[in-house]
């Protein structure tokens, strides 16, 4: 019944009353939300609000203390990461997690892991199918590198890329898994103005050309408000607002969360 409503409204991913506590620390406190197919959902909140924890809970890196997560009308709460990835959710990391000792191409090849299927025995015996599959995987990986404009860096070690390039490589690796939903965790952190522009354009291309659903955590408000269709605001583990970028920006609770309660009572910058 519930699932019918979900498909009717085009919701691909939803989380209900999700909580996560670490000992005495409440990182998430009954957060609910959803994202529709093909939508870009922005997630904002002060540092430590629980945004990354929400991503970790969705992708299976952390098991929620309470609540449930549904993806395409399937309950995915507590599934291991590789199963969640298989079902069609990919992500990037706030603190970049590339395979630093591997080349740029190899990083994307790992992203293509599920596209390959040759088993252990055929691998160690190097049966003929191996070469065909390897060629296919390489072609695919190059395609993703071209998409993000890193094809000419394919044979460089990932650790030798600039921060901006590393973030793009993370996106390429995520796309290589052919996900339906991509969780981008502060992709703009450490990027210069020009790189941020490219990123904004690329996020919109991901949505429009690849038909992806995107959840975006970002501290760069201009970037986030520009690309997001809807914004969810989290503060101290709770959802405090949800709506269009303009609705959220004028929400007093949101302003209070970001600038402190004083600001509402006495909105002079000198006070701070």
């Amino acid at each position, binding site marked *: 019944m519930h699932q019918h409503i979900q498909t009717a409204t085009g919701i691909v991913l939803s989380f209900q009353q999700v909580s996560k506590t670490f000992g005495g620390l409440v990182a998430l406190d009954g957060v609910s939300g959803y994202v529709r197919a093909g939508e870009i959902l922005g997630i904002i909140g002060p540092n430590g609000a629980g945004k990354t924890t929400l991503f970790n809970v969705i*992708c*299976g*890196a952390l098991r929620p203390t309470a609540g449930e997560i549904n993806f395409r009308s399937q309950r995915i709460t507590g599934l*291991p*990461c*590789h199963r*969640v*990835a*298989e079902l069609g959710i*990919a*992500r990037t*990391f706030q603190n970049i*997690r*590339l*395979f*630093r*000792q*591997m*080349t740029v*191409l*190899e*990083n994307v*090849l*790992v*992203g293509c*892991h*599920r596209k*390959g299927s*040759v088993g*252990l025995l055929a*691998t*160690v*015996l*190097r049966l003929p199918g*191996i070469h065909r*599959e*390897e060629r296919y*995987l*390489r*072609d*695919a*990986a*190059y*395609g*993703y590198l*071209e*998409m993000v404009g890193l*094809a000419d860096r*394919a*044979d*460089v*070690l990932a650790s030798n890329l600039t921060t901006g390039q590393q973030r793009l490589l993370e996106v390429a*690796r*995520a796309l*290589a*898994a052919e996900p339906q939903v991509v969780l981008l965790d502060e992709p703009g952190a450490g990027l210069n103005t020009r790189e941020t522009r490219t990123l904004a354009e690329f996020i919109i*291309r991901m949505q429009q*050309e*690849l038909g992806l659903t995107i959840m975006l955590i970002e501290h760069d408000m201009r970037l986030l408000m520009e690309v997001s269709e809807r914004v969810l605001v989290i503060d101290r583990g709770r959802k405090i607002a949800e709506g269009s970028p303009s609705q959220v920006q004028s929400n007093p609770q949101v302003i209070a969360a970001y600038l402190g309660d004083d600001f509402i009572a006495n909105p002079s910058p000198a006070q701070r």
Partner: protein
Amino acid sequence: MKPTRRPPPQAEHGSIVFRALGWLLLAAVVVAPIASGNGYLLTIAIFIGIHAIIAIGLGLLMGYAGQVSLGHAAFYGLGAYTTAILTTKAGIPPLGAMAAGIVLTAVVAVLLGAPTLRLHGHYLAMFTLGLGIIVQIIFNQARGLTGGFGGLMGIPPLGVGYWQLDTKPEFYIAVIAVLTVTILLANNLVHSRIGRALRALHESELAAALSGVDVARYKLLVFVISAMLASVAGSLYAHLLRFVSPDPFGFAFSVELLIMVVAGGARSVWGPVAGAALLTILGEVIAKTGEQIPWVADLDVILFGAVLTAVVIFLPQGLISLTSRLRRRSPTAPSTV
């Protein structure tokens, strides 16, 4: 945005001359012990081969899956004792006993690895340490089966029916053949989609898992493979000496294997082979010297420790990285450091 373009041709690493020289040198080293006609040298070479087979497996586990085993000598011992018991007490032919040893160690490795490798961190090291102790106690105490401290004698030579490898040169060739196959298979594994997944999970389990790599399954896979290789080496050992006793399969040898892998270079297939050669020769030199000057015999642990320390400080990628340092003169080699 459909990915279509073909990659450019792979860059050729290193010069052909360097490679040719390397292979020639290797061939010379392999042939030398037979050519010398020196039985003692041949025995050492056989031991290097046997140790290298275990070290390659342990190298896959440490260098690719990022896990440490402190009990690989136990798998080695399980292989040796299975061969010894089945050939002497049940009259099973050597290859059948060897296969039984492989199956037994694989089962033990699965039972040990399946619960532990789901956890993050070095739980496997603790569990394998425990396994090593338990197996050692069984070898010593289950006298009816293992002969206790005295061990088991009368193991037949390796062979199939009429074809018996009862001379040292023949046995040496057999060991080299097994080692070559091991190197080839390990090399195929490392340079594959699975090998890539392993290197990836070694760097970041989370990122690998989110790329769809079943981290626990791959770690278990490599652990089982490494245990099976140790078992094969153990069976070879039993046929070489025709005698087994508990002593060589204790914790000390597990540590020695670790040093072989780290000193040689865990992140390559040839590294552990180099490490096995170095430590086996070093151990033999110390033992020989110890026959004349008794206190030298106790220096092995100190010397192995010194080797390990020196390698970690000066050649963190292991001895094998010396070859890629030579090769690095060529401008295209991308990923040696």
